[in-house]
């Protein structure tokens, strides 16, 4: 579990350099998990199909939050490396050390970006699912005039 904890710690300087003051990865992930759980509970508990779809949107948003938080954490680490590189340059450290720090900064920047991009894709996916879902609900409602899942049990066993 140690690895899990170190990952969730804020940067060593309290996020000063990266502008991460007040950002706590652990709490962000906890919030994301909570929203996910609430969404899941909604899917289980609600009998109205529209509310179920909304609950699913909630779950997707929780996923997005998780992605964005992880990405932000990586961007923060990247900023730390950038700052360290700048500091090393100022202190006249050897060139390889500086290059190494800059390379690390680049890696963390890229990995941070891919999380953000994934977040954007999730928005698209959520939109597509919502659009299709609502269309199907409307089509169903026209025939049966109900959105209650308890009425949707013509096929069972």
């Amino acid at each position, binding site marked *: 579990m140690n690895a899990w904890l170190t990952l969730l710690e804020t940067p060593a300087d309290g996020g000063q350099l990266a502008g991460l003051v007040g950002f706590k990865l652990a709490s962000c992930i906890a919030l994301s998990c909570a929203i996910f759980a609430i969404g*899941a509970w909604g899917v*289980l*508990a609600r009998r109205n*199909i529209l509310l179920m779809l909304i609950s699913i949107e909630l779950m997707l948003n929780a996923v997005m939050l998780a992605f964005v938080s992880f990405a932000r954490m990586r961007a923060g680490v990247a900023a730390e490396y950038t700052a360290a590189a700048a500091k090393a340059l100022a202190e006249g450290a050897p060139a390889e050390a500086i290059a190494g720090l800059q390379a690390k900064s680049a890696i963390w920047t890229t990995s941070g970006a891919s999380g953000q991009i994934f977040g954007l894709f999730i928005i698209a996916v959520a939109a597509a699912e919502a659009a299709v879902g609502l269309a199907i609900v409307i089509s169903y409602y026209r025939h049966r005039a109900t959105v209650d*899942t308890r009425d*949707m*049990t013509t096929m*069972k*066993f």
Partner: protein
Amino acid sequence: MLDQLRDLFPGWLARPDHYHTWYEQMLCLIPLLPLLGFLINAFARKTISRGASGAVATLAAAMAFGVALLCYMACAIDSQVATVGKYAGMVQEHLQSRPFQPMHAFYGTWLDVGGFRANFGLYMDELSGLMTLVVTGVGTLIHLYSTGYMGHDKSYARYFAYLNLFLFAMLLLVLGDNLILTFVGWEGVGLCSYLLIGFWYTDGDKAAAGMKAFLFNRVGDLGFLLGIFTLIAVFGTVDYVAPPEAAQASSAVMRVPAPPAPKGMLDYAANIKRIDPNGNLTLGQVDASQKLDLSGTVGKAVFPSWSFKLAIGLACLLLFVGAMGKSAQLPLYAWLPDAMAGPTPVSALIHAATMVTAGVYMVARLHALFLFSPHVMMFVAFVGTATAIFAALIGLTQTDIKKVLAYSTVSQLGYMFLAAGAGAFSLAIFHVVTHAFFKALLFLGAGSVIHGMSDEQDMRKMGGLRKHMPVTFVTMLIGSLALAGFPFTAGWFSKDTILAVVLAKSHDDPSFGSWWMALYGLGLIAAFCTAFYTFRLVGMTFFGACRADEKTKAHIHESPAVMTIPLITLAAFALLAGWMWHAFFSAPHFLGMPTPLDNFNMNPPEIGVEATEAQEHWHHVHLVNLGWTSLAALGGIALALVVYVAKGFVPKGEGGNVFTTLSRNKFYLEAFYDKIVSNAFILFAELMHVADVLLIDTLLVRGVAVATRWTGAALRSLQSGLVNFYAGGVLVGALVILYLLLLS
């Protein structure tokens, strides 16, 4: 194009470089001819006439028999000698001295995937060759008979299509050169049996009987498949013998280099035997401390011998479960009596002569493996004996003529497994052969009777038929004598020697000696019962007054020639086939198996050599057994004749001189029979029958059905149709998976 074809079928287009090759190419005709017959009858049944469809089917079977005979002769007689055949004496000499040359035709790789390889190949050695001859020979006669018997049926072509398909599957089973091919045939004959039992499907009961047969066989198949997997795990191959060298070299169809072709299972088994320090090991007496060299098996170079023996034992046990299903042994026998719902020639071909003996054939085919596990062999013998006595007892009280024969078949199959379990595999096959003749004869005779009696099967409504159907009577009498074990008929030779071997084992086998004695005793009782119920059948059917109603009585007639010719032919074989005994019994390594005498180191003395002590002992045992079996057979026959024939004669006052003396004692004997013998036997037989119905039908079949229904009902309630509930299932599943994976 040709090159590609050559790649795909390396054996097919190979240049024949030795004499055998032409016959090897012909080998595939044996199963393919019936397949062709099936295709013609299945797809052209609307266009060809009734006569033509029967002729096509019969001809297909007959041609398969002809080809089989040619191939068998080619194996048995060397070509060079045959070409200079004018020196008849030389041929004669050669026939005696030259061992049988097995044929192995290889038609290509069937499946090579996932690290497993199986071939298309046919293998004819003495064992499979003999079985092929029996299957095609008896099959041809029954096809011929069917053209008469099924003459009035409207689904004539469909019947012959099924019959030919059955022959194809059975020949694949027998001739296949690996267990998978055998299994394909095994399932194929099961399917045909199911189709033919339910042939008159308009009758709900008969369709149900077909279903029962199919399901019981699947239980056996479960064992068979698991046995195959075990053997794959041990040997890495399912080939019986290695494919021919030429085929191995040219079979690299795929670009991926194939792993070196493994040897066959039986090759391994033979090799293991050879490296045994004693050198003459035959009965699985592998020393526990000894290492077995299996170099060449996939991945496993050296086994400790105990684990090898365990694995082989397990495989044999599982395969025997498969045999129990197919050959109707306890407790999987119950489908066979029900299977009599099918047309009578089908009962003769499938449920007496060929398919049900497939289990015995498989055990004999793999005898080299069974020899490694004496405990499994003992189990085989136990199951065989139990089935023999159990079915014989039930047979005593049956009144349906076909049911009597069905239980008798189950009982005789028990004898075959008793022989196999005693290590006398060639005797088991001997009994398969003789039984094929006389039981097919009896069934066909029964069919003739049923045909003449306007489809009446109840023996209580028959009687006195010998005057109306003389040919049927005489041939059935011969068949009955053979089944009862009357001296010098086919059944006497095979059954008597099986019991002799069992008796010899009781003296010879140090670990299970007294058990063998018990099995011998039970076998004798079963032999007595066999003789009794057989002649009970004869007596009730052919003697006494005719008990049928007037309408039926007016209609009784002898069957046409197409039906009597097969009867006569089979009767000749039932009388004479026993004289082959010398080949099965004492020729060294006939069928490629140790003979029973090999097992006891008691080969008959060479000419001019003094008999050893063991040989003297064997002769003694044989003589003792001869006395007992003859007593059992003659006693059973006599008792049945007294009770059923003599009793039937007197009231009419035309008792005939032969039975006058006995009929005077009628009351005494009848009382004796009724009060003591019959009551005890009937009670016991009824008990067995009740146990059959209660345990097998109710508990096993129904019980499984009910259990599935209940679990199904419980599970169905989970499928409520409510989407929230389903989502709950997903969530629970997710949590369980999370928990399991995080824990691991």
